[in-house]
């Protein structure tokens, strides 16, 4: 047994905004361009839990009835796509700050957050969050925490494109 085995290294963190839907290929490219991949083998087998969250554009979205404005009574309508509008470069910077703060607070081994910019069609991915932790409890808590705070602090807006 080696003392360095017990040392907790700083969490590996990645946050990036990508044009268009998040495909597996774009995700792999983004991870690789930051020089690392997710997975147990690369972390000395300290990982006990790997979590992945994918946000998918749904076919139905709440629709503000004409005349009632934003915040009025809503219905659901069929969607073609969502247009994600980001305030650049603040959005990516805040995404990274959030990733660092959540990874540190929950003692994670690694966290990657990827978000789309621009048009994402129904059924496509607009958001991917990957969390690696020693145990499941902190991984689940971190995932919930990240997603809640994403909606508060990261300047990304979506605009529905109706069918």
């Amino acid at each position, binding site marked *: 047994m080696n003392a360095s085995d017990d040392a907790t290294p700083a969490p590996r963190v990645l946050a990036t905004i990508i044009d268009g839907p998040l495909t597996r290929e774009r995700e792999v490219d983004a991870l690789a361009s930051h020089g690392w991949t997710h997975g147990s083998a690369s972390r000395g087998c300290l990982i006990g839990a790997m979590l992945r969250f994918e946000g998918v554009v749904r076919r139905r979205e709440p629709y503000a009835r004409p005349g009632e404005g934003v915040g009025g009574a809503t219905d659901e309508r069929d969607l073609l796509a969502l247009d994600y509008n980001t305030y650049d470069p*603040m959005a990516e910077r805040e995404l990274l700050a959030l990733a660092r703060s959540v990874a540190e607070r929950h003692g994670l081994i690694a966290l990657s957050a990827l978000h789309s910019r621009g048009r994402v069609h129904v059924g496509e991915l607009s958001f991917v969050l990957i969390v690696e932790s020693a145990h499941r409890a902190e991984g689940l808590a971190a995932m919930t925490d990240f*997603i809640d705070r994403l909606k508060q602090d990261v300047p990304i807006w979506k605009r529905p494109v109706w069918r």
Partner: protein
Amino acid sequence: MQVEVLIFGGAALAAKTDRVTVEVSGAPSVREVLAALHAQHPALKFALPPPETGRLAVNQAFAAGSHPIKPGPLDQGGDEVALITLVGGG
């Protein structure tokens, strides 16, 4: 003097523009710009945080209520000010 405030999302849709201007005196704080937005742009009310507790982004970073803002156009040294509420990522 004037401060130009970038707006996004539902606020931009409601105002049919991506920026609004408020009249201020001297070098206002974030709190004073928020109060001016409330007074001068009532149509944005649904998207505005309370002047006392709200924050704006100043030069692309969140700034608390007491933070001073340089008025004037960006290309004349003014701060870039943005209203960031009701975000919807994820």
